[in-house]
């Protein structure tokens, strides 16, 4: 068997190992490549940097621990700006683990803004099953859609923030942390098209990068006001808000692993053509 044949049928485990080595190497020895700020991140920054005191941001944590690396940095940066301006935040979750992610995020925020009071400045409504049915119901009445309990099992009427947040229509902006379904694909028809677009309410989607292609038509049509794409947008938001974190730290590893994938694509094609040529030569011989 020729070299190209062997390469063509290379054991996948070699590739797995190469990927691991590249990522681990980049994490231990970061290079600090410069990151340019894109227009979407700037737009998100402008929206939340001008958030009015007392206004409520509704954040839907529609992702789990796996999606968090891609999404949480962007969501966190937006929420940080809202709190900085004296805004309030209500968190819901269409994914079971989303409620946890919200809890982690609020815990971090409390370290930065010790004056925040749960139930007054922020509230975690917890996981609500039902996907699009929940959104549909929450457009009429959030309390009913939540079966009247928050994440900690308390009655919603105990929390002052809920007095100003009877329905989703009372939110000054909505963020959807989108990792899959339910997520933006449910928020766009149920909330954005039905309410946010006609009333010019910002609807921001912070999504893992897989969703970029699906959501592209909604971004171009304006059904999604701002779209923050994956860890890249997370890194940009971290730079904009001046709080560097995991997203910026991961970007070098991303760069190198992408180069590895590209190199493999090129190698795969070279071996493909070489094998094809050898086979053709054999046939002729």
């Amino acid at each position, binding site marked *: 068997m020729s070299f190209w044949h062997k390469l063509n049928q290379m054991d996948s*485990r070699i590739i*797995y190992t190469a*990927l*691991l080595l590249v*990522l*681990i190497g980049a*994490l*231990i020895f970061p290079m600090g490549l410069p990151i340019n700020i894109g227009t979407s991140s700037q737009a998100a920054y402008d929206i939340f940097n001008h958030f009015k005191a007392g206004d409520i941001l509704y954040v839907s944590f529609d992702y789990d*621990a*796996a*999606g*968090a*690396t*891609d999404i949480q940095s962007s969501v966190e940066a937006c929420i940080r700006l809202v709190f900085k301006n004296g805004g309030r935040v209500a968190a819901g979750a269409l994914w*079971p683990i989303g409620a946890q992610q919200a809890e*982690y995020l609020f815990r*971090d925020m409390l370290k930065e803004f010790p004056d925040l009071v749960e139930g007054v400045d922020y509230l975690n409504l*917890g*996981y*609500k*099953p039902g996907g*699009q*049915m929940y959104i*549909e119901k929450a457009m009429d009445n959030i309390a009913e859609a939540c*079966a*009247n*309990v928050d994440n900690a*099992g308390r009655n919603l009427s105990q929390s002052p923030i809920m007095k100003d947040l009877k329905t989703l229509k009372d939110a000054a902006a909505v963020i959807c942390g989108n990792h899959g379904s339910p997520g933006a694909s449910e928020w*766009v*028809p*149920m909330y*954005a*098209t*039905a309410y946010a677009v006609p009333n010019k309410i910002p609807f921001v989607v912070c999504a*893992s*990068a*897989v*969703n*970029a*292609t*699906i959501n592209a*038509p*909604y971004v*171009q*049509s*304006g*059904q999604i006001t701002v779209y923050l*794409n*994956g*860890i*890249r947008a997370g890194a940009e938001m971290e730079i904009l808000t001046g709080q560097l*974190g*995991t997203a910026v*730290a*991961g970007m070098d*590893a*991303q760069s190198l*692993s*992408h180069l590895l*994938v590209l190199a493999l694509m090129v190698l795969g094609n070279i071996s493909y053509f070489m094998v094809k040529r050898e086979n053709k030569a054999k046939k002729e011989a």
Partner: protein
Amino acid sequence: MQLSTSFAVWLTAGMTLAIYSGVYKENPFYRLVEHIYVGVSAGNGVVATIDNYIRPTIQIDIAKNGTWTYLIPIFIGLFVYARYSKNRKINWLSRIPLAFWVGIGSAVVITKTFKANFISQITATFLPAVTNDPLTMFNNILMIVGVISVLSYFFFTFEMPRPLKVIPKFGRYIMMIGFGAAYGNTVLSRISVLLGRLQFLLGNWLGIIQTRV
């Protein structure tokens, strides 16, 4: 930073490594972790449903607020278990919840998603084909032609006359470019997740790199 002393971190690290070992070869560790994962997550699905729906519906809505009409959906839901009955007079009742769910599901499909995914997409393609900026003009025309040609790829009954056959073909090319873009974005996304796990393994567990939390 140093090696973690937390049991939870070690357990998590062990399970993560067991999952990765499955990528190399199926083995008993992977299989065990897989079964535990399936069990816990199915159990968690039940617990979350009880906490979020069953308990509040019975305790608050019915017992406290007296919304007795909620007994109707409860019975509809419970009918699904009729399928375990051997009695033919009873087990057909399991079709009632199926009909109820599919009926509402179809109605939601018709009323909600159609506007966002069809009408709004048509109106968003109302772009001027002549503009002062040549690049915008090119983009607008490409967008209009692209959408139309991909739509025409999905014709099931119209046979295109020969010179027009290039339209669905062009549509397929446009789709392939779109799928390539999707592939590229997915790489970013998936590596992010692996990065998150490696940051955990190298940081929280082995203590080689700095991490937050």
